[in-house]
């Protein structure tokens, strides 16, 4: 059996899944100031009276690193940045301990200016005296040539606890994002490490010596030991938990929109034949644009607790939330109050008369009955969510492409199916189907779908390989890999090499042999011509284990609900 645990803002959901499907599910309140207690209590409760040997592993999705970033509780990290010519790197300053140093590498990985060792040593001494323990080192074009980052690491390694190097964090070219990502990794490292080591040892003491996996923002998992070098990948795993929880119940023969209607926001994502769409660059969180792999998700400020008001005789829902619905003692009317008024929600914990009281002035302003006004509110919330969904699809379809083939084949996303989860999911699903071109369903077991998704997600990772046969090298800096190649080395050889590296990395990150679903993200080969003569080939390969569920999942989810298909009607 597998434990899946997803920490949310108010509740933490924990499930135990196994041969009988959903074996157990519980919800415990999240105590943000004592997340450790929350997680431990959850695991204790879900495993109560279950022999430890029956549990294979646990997958955890927490808000630990996300909250640290959003609440600006990051531990200081020293950043050493070598840029050379181009945009002034001081624009990308992270915190007070940000140093731009000499050294320059060009787009082809050639050294243009060297690193000044004395300069690095001096900065090292200063950072040490300021009690900085964690360092990030980023060079422009380091994924083409990591030499400078490695040289700086060598100088600083004896004096610091942990050094994060840009080229190991991501193989994508985007210097400002690489700086932000490396900084976030370095600055969440201590809390991540301390937290999960504490979880692990507490579980050990209770006799539960199972492997612990962390859910990542790309909907994949990673073994805790491997996550020590990439703690930033745990940021914003929450939205991906819900998406992964929908995967098993989405049709495998068409495109599906997943909508998680929460209190403050509705989060949306796209599944193509059960495979979640990845974001083209990476997570944006707070002021940080990063290279952290993530599912393509979009969030709008409309949820069950959004503020409802009338402005210039027009009804408005959201985008802000000031408190819970009035039915639950909140200060302003919300879509949830509309559901109370319409008699769709019967929660005994809520007070319908408060909802009526809240919506009455809105009804007056609109010149209609309270029930009609409640319906208008509910309808508008659904309409706004659908409009945002259509806009998201349009944006995805507008993404620039760089080859004639892509322009002409012009693959366009056209989802017809929507899956909804979250508090008011059932009511929203019904109405959204009525007013739109989509078929709309709720995700089975949606109140804990996020935890189910967390439990069943497979281990993912990515490898970038770059070969230049003119120079006679193939490098995958993220994997600390470099090898001499002959002049006849080609794309097929590079793919073979990349697959090998990817397999190795996936297994190291905790993947099981049966879940190595290899996938090509980029596969380009260029003739290099110098002085009108063919001098070599420039080959770029990006491979991934794509996000999805572990092979074993079907025996589990088939017990929960049957997967629909677009052919037979969802």
């Amino acid at each position, binding site marked *: 059996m597998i434990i899946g645990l997803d920490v949310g803002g108010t509740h933490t959901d924990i499930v135990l899944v196994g041969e009988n499907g959903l074996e157990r599910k519980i919800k415990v309140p999240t105590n943000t100031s004592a997340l450790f207690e929350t997680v431990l209590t959850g695991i204790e409760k879900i495993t109560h009276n279950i022999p430890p040997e029956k549990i294979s592993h646990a997958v955890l999705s927490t808000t630990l690193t996300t909250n640290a970033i959003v609440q600006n509780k990051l531990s200081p990290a020293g950043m050493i940045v070598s840029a050379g010519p181009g*945009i002034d790197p001081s624009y990308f300053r992270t915190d007070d301990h940000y140093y731009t140093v000499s050294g320059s590498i060009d787009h*082809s990985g050639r050294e243009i200016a060297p690193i000044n060792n004395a300069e690095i040593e001096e900065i090292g001494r200063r950072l040490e005296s300021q009690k900085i323990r964690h360092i990030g080192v980023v060079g*422009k074009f380091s994924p083409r040539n990591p030499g400078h980052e490695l040289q700086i690491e060598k100088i600083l390694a004896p004096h610091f606890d942990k050094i994060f190097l840009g080229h190991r964090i991501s193989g994508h070219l*985007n*210097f*400002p994002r690489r700086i932000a990502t490396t900084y976030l990794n370095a600055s969440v490292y201590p809390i991540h490490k301390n937290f999960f080591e504490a979880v692990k040892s507490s579980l050990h003491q209770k006799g539960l010596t199972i492997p612990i996996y962390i859910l990542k923002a790309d909907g994949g998992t990673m073994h805790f030991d491997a996550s020590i070098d990439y703690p930033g990948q745990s940021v914003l795993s929450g939205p991906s938990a819900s998406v992964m929880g929908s995967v098993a119940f989405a049709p495998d023969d068409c495109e599906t929109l997943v909508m998680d209607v929460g209190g403050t926001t509705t989060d949306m994502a796209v599944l193509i034949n059960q495979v979640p769409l990845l974001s083209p660059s990476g997570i944006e969180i707070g002021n940080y644009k990063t290279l952290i792999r993530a599912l393509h998700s979009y969030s709008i400020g409309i949820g069950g607790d959004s503020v409802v008001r009338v402005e210039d005789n027009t009804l408005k829902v959201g985008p802000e939330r000031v408190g819970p619905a009035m039915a639950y003692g909140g200060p302003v009317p919300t879509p949830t109050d509309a559901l109370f008024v319409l008699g769709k929600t019967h929660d005994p914990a809520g007070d319908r008369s408060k909802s009526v009281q809240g919506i009455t002035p809105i009804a007056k302003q609109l010149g209609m009955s309270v029930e009609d006004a409640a319906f208008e509110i509910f309808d508008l919330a659904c309409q706004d969510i659908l409009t945002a969904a259509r806009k998201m699809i349009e944006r995805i379809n*507008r993404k620039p*492409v760089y080859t004639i083939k892509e322009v002409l084949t012009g693959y366009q996303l056209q989802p017809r199916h929507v899956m909804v989860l979250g508090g008011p999911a059932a009511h929203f699903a019904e109405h959204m189907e009525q007013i739109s071109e989509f078929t709309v369903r709720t995700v089975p077991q949606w109140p804990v779908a996020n935890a189910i998704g967390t439990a069943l997600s497979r281990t993912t990772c990515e490898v970038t390989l770059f070969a230049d046969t003119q120079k006679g090298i193939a490098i995958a800096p993220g994997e600390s890999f470099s090898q001499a190649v002959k002049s006849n080395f080609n794309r097929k050889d590079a793919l073979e090499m990349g697959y090998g590296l990817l397999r190795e990395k996936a297994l190291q990150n905790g993947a099981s042999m049966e879940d190595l679903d290899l996938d090509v993200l980029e596969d*380009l080969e260029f003739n290099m011509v110098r002085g009108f003569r063919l001098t070599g080939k420039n080959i770029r390969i990006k491979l991934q284990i794509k996000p999805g569920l572990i092979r074993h999942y079907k025996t589990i989810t088939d017990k929960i609900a049957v997967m629909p298909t677009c052919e037979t009607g969802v």
Partner: protein
Amino acid sequence: MLKAKHKTGLIFFPAFDWAISPTHPEREERMLYTQDQVFEEGLLDIDGIIEYKAGLVEIKDVQRVHFCAPDEHSVMTQSHFISAGGAKTIADAVMRKKIDRGFALVRPPGHHAMRVVHGGRGFCNVNNEAIMIEYLRSAYNVDRVAIIDTDCHHGDGTQDIFWHDPDTLFISLHQDGRTLYPGSGFPEEMGGPMAAGTILNVPLPPYTSEEGFLHVIRELVLPVLDEFKPDLIINSAGQDNHFTDPLTNMNFSAQGYANLNALLKPDISVLEGGYSIEGALPYVNLGIILAMAGLDYSNVREPEYDFSKLRQSEQISRVIERTCDSVLSNWNARELIRMRMKGNKKFDKRRRSIMYDTEGFYEHQNETIRICDECGGVLQIDSTADTGNHILAVHIPRKACHACREQGLEWFDAANTSKYDLIFCQDRTDDTYRVRKA
């Protein structure tokens, strides 16, 4: 946080799957390192820099400008439709005020493509800027347009298309035609009798550097623009004046290109040539994009850049100053020159031979234009190419007067299909394009 002062749109279409031939300068690899530089600098993440997806032009867009023989699909590959489509997409975004300025980094280029197209010349088949401009004139309230061509090669195609158009100002700065393809672009080439002066050619000596280019911009281009008062300024942004370009002999730099852009402030730039794919393009494009967006570009510098080594000689400076003075005096005398060219003639004729170097054949043209005081004048081109096609092309200009339009229609109707393989009528007054076949 970086924020663009001017909202700047980019089309980046490197056509990673298109080449003229595997080792041709115009090949898949051309924009590869530029894309690396643009991505690595994080340009597309900057607030106010927006990347657009290139659309395709339609046949109709091409037919506003060109006479393609035998037809459009015979002389255009898909890449040409997308390259011109990229320029059109960015122009749309500017006109709809989604962006203040736009830059279409597209390939293949287009400024050597003339009005009649029998094939490829100078790596160009159709003229991206001209197609874009005539599209804008038909879709928006755009009349007067200025094109500043800063490619190292004379923009003879663009010059040909707008030769008789008094509403299009074309200024080309290029390496002296006596030393470089296509061998034209001398100050005497000033446009046809109704439009003389709206074509201005500034040949520059080999080894001209930053100060020479910027001198022309400050002393000639900006004053002329001030007087011409265009609705739009277009930059045919070739990047082969760079000191590392393998096909040319100039000493321009990334800083120079960025400075030129900051002075010129084009509404729309369209990439033309530039074949130093590693040493120049990544830096030149970075500089241009930052300058367009109003961002600091002072730290953009090529690895091999050395100001003192690149600096032009005093002698070159003197030559450029003299050229500028004479071009400027031509501009100032344009009314007089037009009068002299018109004389008492009813029609004016030109005979030309045009080389298609990419495919290696010649085209022979006899052009006749009606001398007119009311409009730009209707024209017909009798064109024979070594490929075997003999065509008659009638162009009725956008603002043609009644008499010119009637003349054009008469030419079209009267032409004998036993003499010509194809007879075309491009009527810009009602935006139609008609073909008669033998």
